[in-house]
């Protein structure tokens, strides 16, 4: 933008926009993500996101793996909500092959997926506090509860992060005998622990001043840009895949869908915070309803061959609508395996949301989209 002052023609004064590279290594971007900002003073006039630093071939490599080996790839796609992604893929394969998992396996899947949703949202709250400027306090509060959840996961599956526990047709092995007390202990700790985060961040005036009114998104824009998950619900649209297109046994539980009003950064934070409470409700109902029984479908073959066909299965992951599109051709390996990642679609709206904002606010907006680079780049 050239601003002309009243100067003699041979000394025309221009101001130029400088390019600021928020590079792949940066304490604020959540993963290896690069943005090239064009900045006029403090205001951003253009934003160019550069992705691909974490591309690992997550869609091509499962074409060489059979259906059980490919479960591990989904763990590593969205590495903060692994049970949800495994759930999606395993249900997709079950649709292709016509298997119906037994009841107990369904309950186990729902309980673990909802716990994973809580831990993913806790991670978001911790990291978001750091973006806004809290020096690590929110991180420690969130991680204290997340550690308890991960310890519980270790008791059940053996791993803290990359579980590889769901199988087409059920789950790999049964829950430990003391799972009920374990889970209820974790739930009561979470209910106490989120009060700390509530007190620290939800009413804090400085957080309000930073986040409220920042990049509001209207309903039409949200639908046009293809947002999903908490980003969409913060704009006031009550769309949740667990209600709109129920999968597994979600129609047996009662839970609310928290929505926001204007779709700004503060609403996204409150929507995610309220979702933690709703997940706690679902888990409590599931723990009451679960019963003894088999955990793997009867007569499961050792080598699973899917008949020729295609299926698209979607679930509500903590980031939005996670979808898996599998094309089978009769052998024991998928022919085409595509992942619809919610972070990728939400991230494409970053440019429209940040033009006209300050540089410091762009970091906050990026934090509020809650991306996971493993999904974006696959």
């Amino acid at each position, binding site marked *: 933008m050239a601003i002309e002052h009243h100067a003699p023609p041979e000394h025309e004064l221009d101001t130029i926009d400088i390019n600021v590279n928020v590079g792949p290594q940066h304490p604020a971007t959540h993963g290896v993500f690069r943005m090239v900002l064009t900045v006029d003073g*403090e205001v951003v006039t253009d934003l160019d996101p550069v992705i691909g630093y974490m591309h690992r071939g997550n869609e091509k490599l499962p074409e060489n793996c059979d259906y059980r080996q490919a479960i591990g790839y989904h763990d590593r796609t969205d590495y903060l909500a692994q049970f949800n992604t495994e759930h999606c893929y395993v249900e997709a394969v079950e649709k292709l092959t016509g298997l119906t998992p037994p009841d107990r396996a369904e309950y186990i899947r729902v309980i673990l997926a909802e716990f994973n949703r809580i831990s993913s949202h806790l991670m978001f709250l911790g990291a978001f506090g750091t973006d806004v400027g*809290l020096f690590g306090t929110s991180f420690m509060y969130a991680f204290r509860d997340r550690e308890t959840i991960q310890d519980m996961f270790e008791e059940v599956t053996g791993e803290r992060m990359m579980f590889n526990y769901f199988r087409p047709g059920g789950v790999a092995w049964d829950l430990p005998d003391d799972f009920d007390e374990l889970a209820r202990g974790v739930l009561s700790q979470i209910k106490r622990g989120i009060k700390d985060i509530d007190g620290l961040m939800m009413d804090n005036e400085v957080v*309000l*001043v930073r986040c409220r009114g920042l990049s509001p998104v209207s309903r039409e824009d949200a639908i046009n840009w293809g947002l999903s998950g908490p980003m969409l619900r913060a704009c006031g649209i009550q769309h949740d895949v667990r209600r709109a297109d129920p999968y597994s046994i979600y129609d047996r539980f009662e839970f609310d869908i928290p929505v926001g009003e204007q779709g700004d950064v503060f609403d996204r934070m409150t929507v995610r915070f309220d979702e933690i409470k709703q997940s706690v409700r679902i888990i409590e109902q599931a723990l009451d309803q679960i019963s003894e029984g088999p955990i793997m479908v009867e007569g499961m073959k050792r080598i699973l061959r899917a008949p020729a066909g295609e299926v698209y299965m979607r679930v509500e992951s903590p980031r939005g609508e996670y979808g898996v599109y599998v094309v089978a051709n009769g052998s024991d390996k998928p022919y085409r395996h595509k992942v619809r990642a919610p972070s990728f679609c939400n991230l494409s709206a970053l440019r429209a949301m940040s033009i*006209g*904002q*300050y540089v*410091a*606010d762009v970091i906050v907006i990026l934090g509020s989209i809650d991306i996971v680079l493993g999904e974006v780049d696959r």
Partner: protein
Amino acid sequence: MILGMIVDNVWLDALIRLGGVAMLVPLTVIVLTWVERKVMGRIQMRLGPMRVGPYGLLQGFADTIKLLTKEDLRPTTADRWVFELAPFAIVVPIIMALVTLPFTADILIRNLTLGLFYIVALQGLSIVGFVMAGWGSDNKYALIGGARAAAQLISYEVPFILSILAVAMVAGSLDIGIVVGSQDDTPFIAYLPLAFVIFMIAGLAELYRQPFDIPVAESEVVGGPFVEYSGIRWSMFQLGEFVGMVLISILASLIFLGGWQWPIGGDVPEWAQAVTMAIKTVAFILFFMWMRASLPRLRVDQLMAYCWQLLLPFAFLQIIINGLALAYDWPLWTLTVMSLIGAGALVYLTHRAARQSGVMNQPTGVSAQQVGSVL
């Protein structure tokens, strides 16, 4: 208040005292880095440093040794003298301000009749260092950080000085000894709560700590004006920050809480005075660290709006109240009442500004020229 001499020769006495300060200041800073890490750790429910020495006590020394042995880098395209002199430009004025800052009636270097004036003048000098660091680093991030730092520090100087001026008006002199002496029965915080609140907020901003730490925002402009510095120059910046924190804590306990005289009176042994001062200073230092752990940071335009639209008018209000009370010889409790009303109004307006939309909430459009009203 006569200063007791250690030896009879004036110059030798001054040298001994200066030597004492020169040894104590780095030691204090080293201990404070350990205290800060431990306090932040406890607030975050973790242990803090534990490995180096018992309970991590030697952590400060270990950090200092590490910083001293690092390679002293300088970017080749940096402006050499500006880059190298910037740390000195920040640190030297702050340490010079310690010359007239008393810790007890006898532990100080020299008492000046214009003590308070001297301290605030030197505080203002260190702003030049930020601009030098930002410019001399030849780095976009440093430039942005340096410009922000200069804007913030210059703006918050004004309410800071006005609140100190309010205290000087009530005490009747700029001499720190007289200010402390006149707080024999009631500390000035009882008469001037509004000035105290403004002093604390402006003091936090002067120290570029949360919630005003935009100049050194780690997650945004990765360190601000200090990004190209390493080794001993970096440690000089940290030294400057901690010495500034000690300076403002001691100043606050002297002019608002009665220094070494309240509540124990003036005729007590040296160690009692030192203990009283130590308790008050440590309380302020812990308060600053506590704020750092619990508050996120404000954006730079919100910061500036807050200073010019809220703090400054209330600072003027405090001076006016003082003027009225002192010129018409009203009893001092009227001062308390008016000042309390002022403080309440400040708190209420801050609350309103944060909760509803205004310049504190809505970011502006592409042209950053229009700035709305906070009220």
